[in-house]
């Protein structure tokens, strides 16, 4: 059976490099709930390497599980949850492997133990997936160099997701690219080629097959000639520039001239270092690490930019445009040659920096250069939101809908971690009191908060299969991005409201 064929629909998203990461990834799932089971299903199907389910030996399949959980059969009532879930999940795709670890006593007690880090080989996993923010687990992950924690929860019609990872260092963000075509500051080979073409001397057929980039370039030269070497700047200047192109058109149906006109505003897009990339450059000061590939590449890029008049390396790509194959290929060749030169320069800077002689493949460097304009870097917080000031810092001091969902989840989580049971409607006054204590008069409880809390408490801790599946789907998408190191992941907290089908993101400070 061919893996390329089986995984074809996803390879089109993250290619074989992303797939290889996925197939080598290891996840431990702590005490599964419906949402985290759904999350795992969405990773096992595309071919996750390995998963381990860690749970208390006391946790067995109940009638309640039978009523909303798809990953069991009714004859499994009373059997160990960890074992049943692990084998039923693995059955979805035998390319994954699994392991079951059953612990004595409750999961809470296990996670609260002083020697937690010695009790399980946490650092042999890339990710821990859990459904409550166990403070000990968050502490633990801070001490592990390559293990991150994902917390996913679903109760009533609401859900939350949070990622605990030290930082994001992404190269392949799949951002919508605004190609740097260098028409405002062309290099010599491009200008030479453009100058070698005499538009007026061409017959109509040839004239209509000149790539629009050349038309734009020539019009730019003409504009500069007419305006003492100045580039068009103001909106009215650009109109003059466009009029030059319009004036050169020999026939109404010259598509290449139409393309030159419709794409003329793009020329003026700022092509140099975008704001997000500048921030990454600024982070070099504090975060540079000569043993880290990402930082070596970023620093080499910064040096390249500084020594190239602020320009990033050219990617060698040009858009498709109406033209003969020959004209297009000649132009493309000029861009590719420039890319190769930039690549060589970049490699020189990298080599100088790379004092530890870390091995880079050409593919790695090319990939970095082609994506260098849209790199992504972020540092994440490991803060536990355990007092009102911290809550206000991240979510503000108004308890509207999203804040109410978040606060309700925090209160219920605190209650659960303390009493090992999820409160129901009979506990609403207790929960309101806990909330008042937490808010410490700095935030007033709103009607919205009471409504949301009521909505959660009335379902007695039962998960709604649909909401858990949504949260598991979102969690899996985020994990896929973290594993393949492609696209841009959530940074770092999400709340979902399934009544209105809306969501909001927050960055925890």
């Amino acid at each position, binding site marked *: *059976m061919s893996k390329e064929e*089986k*995984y*074809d*629909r*996803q390879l*089109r*998203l993250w290619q074989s490099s992303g797939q290889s990461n996925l197939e080598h990834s290891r996840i431990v799932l702590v005490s599964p709930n419906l949402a985290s089971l759904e999350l795992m*299903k*969405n990773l096992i*199907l*595309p071919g996750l390497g390995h998963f381990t389910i860690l749970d208390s030996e006391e946790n067995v399949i109940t*009638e*309640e599980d*039978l*009523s*909303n959980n*798809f990953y069991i*059969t*009714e004859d499994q009532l009373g059997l160990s949850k960890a074992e049943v879930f692990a084998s039923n999940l693995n059955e979805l795709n035998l390319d994954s492997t699994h392991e079951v670890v059953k612990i004595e006593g409750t999961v809470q007690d296990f996670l609260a133990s002083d020697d937690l880090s010695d009790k399980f080989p946490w650092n042999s996993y890339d990710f821990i997936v859990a459904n409550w923010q166990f403070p000990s687990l968050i502490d633990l992950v801070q001490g592990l160099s390559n293990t991150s924690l994902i917390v996913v929860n679903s109760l009533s019609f609401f859900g939350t997701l949070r990622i605990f990872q030290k930082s994001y260092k992404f190269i392949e963000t799949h*951002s919508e690219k605004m190609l740097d075509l260098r028409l405002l500051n062309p290099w010599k080979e491009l200008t030479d080629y453009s100058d070698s073409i005499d538009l007026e001397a061409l017959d109509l057929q040839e004239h209509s*097959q000149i790539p629009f980039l050349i038309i734009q370039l020539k019009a730019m030269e003409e504009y500069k000639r007419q305006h003492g070497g100045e580039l068009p700047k103001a909106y009215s200047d650009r109109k003059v520039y466009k009029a030059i192109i319009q004036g050169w058109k020999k026939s109404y149906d010259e598509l290449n001239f139409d393309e030159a006109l419709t794409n003329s505003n793009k020329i003026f897009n700022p092509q140099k270092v975008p704001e997000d990339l500048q921030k990454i450059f600024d982070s070099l000061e504090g975060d540079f690490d000569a043993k880290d590939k990402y930082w070596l590449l970023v620093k080499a890029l910064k040096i390249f930019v500084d020594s190239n008049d602020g320009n990033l390396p050219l990617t060698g790509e040009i858009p*498709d445009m*109406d033209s*003969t*194959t020959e004209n297009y*290929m000649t132009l493309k060749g000029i861009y590719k040659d420039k890319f190769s030169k930039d690549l060589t320069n970049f490699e020189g800077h990298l080599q100088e920096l790379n004092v530890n002689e870390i091995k880079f493949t050409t593919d790695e460097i090319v990939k970095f250069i082609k994506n260098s304009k849209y790199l992504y870097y972020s540092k994440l917080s490991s803060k536990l939101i355990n007092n009102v000031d911290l809550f206000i810092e991240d979510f503000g001091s108004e308890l509207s809908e999203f804040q109410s969902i978040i606060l309700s989840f925090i209160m219920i989580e605190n209650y659960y971690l303390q009493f090992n049971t999820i409160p129901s*409607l009979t506990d609403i006054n207790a929960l309101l009191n806990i909330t008042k204590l937490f808010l410490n008069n700095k935030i007033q409880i709103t009607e919205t908060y*009471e*409504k949301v809390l009521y*909505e959660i408490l*009335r*379902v*007695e801790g*039962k*998960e*709604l*299969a*649909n*909401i*858990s*599946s*949504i949260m598991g*789907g*979102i969690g*899996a*998408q*985020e994990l*896929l*991005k973290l594993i393949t190191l492609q*696209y*841009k992941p959530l940074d770092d907290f*999400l709340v979902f409201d*399934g*009544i*209105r*089908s*809306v*969501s909001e*993101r927050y960055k925890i400070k």
Partner: protein
Amino acid sequence: MTRTNIAIRPYLRTKGKFADEEYEPGEEVLYALTTSKILVLGAGGLGCEILKNLASSGFKEIHVIDMDTIDLSNLNRQFLFRTQDIGRPKAEVAAEYVMKRFKGVNIIPYYGKLQDKDEAYYAQFQVVISGLDSIEARRWINNTLVNLVDPEDASSVKFLIDGGTEGFRGQTKVIIPTFTACYECSLDTISGQTTYPMCTITNNPRLPEHCIEYVSTIEWPQSHKDQKLDMDDPEHVTWLHERSLARAKEFGIEGITRSLCLGVVKNIIPAIASTNAIIAASCCNEAFKIVTSSNPILENFMMYSGNDSVFTYTFAYERKDDCPVCGGL
């Protein structure tokens, strides 16, 4: 023993603070959930998820229609199918699997086209969830359900919940025929397949896609007469791949791969389990709220994007007065 409703009951036994004022919780709501007939269109990536979710959230009377058979490339997300099921009808295998897993749920599969069924068939359902991958099939069911509406009879209004995904993106649309925007009203927001000008393909290819288009649309019919190009036949794909490579070489174009040939000719849309899970569950969440009235429903479109962080956009799409299907009704 069969599966109970223990986990679903609390949602319907009490009334939440966001529910409609007139809503009365209780046994009748649970009865409505277990007896209401729901139709699922498509048993593919979305369909498998939808069937699982409906069974897991208390629905008992489900019909499913799908005209396809199972293919190897389905298995990365269509989790009700296994290698040994390849070649069998999706609707039948999916129904068997879910009924075996979830005793007490009744799923009636139909292996065939939507168009095989008449109005009387569609009239028996309260909700139709569509996990179709074709725009034409969606337009057909939309048109059919709008035509069913009898202004004198509230039960003739069938809710249509439409899900769609592409890569990390997807959308859920809740359509109440003649009351909210229908599928046709929103048609101009849907982008079609990329096409290339004929003179580019024949005279001035510049991209690998141009070469593949030439070989599949011009060279193949020339050399194979009446035989149709079948991209599920590995020999056909090999021929196309080799000819495309040759044409690309002739023009100095790089980047032809077998995978690209398949992608261009079959118009393959990337698909992953997690996006299907999000959108299918969102559709089923709306179906649950519609049938139980336990909470207000989505008004009326939700877009999801996971390419850049997580982003949802929920908005009321307006009906079009000049809609060729529901305009003026």
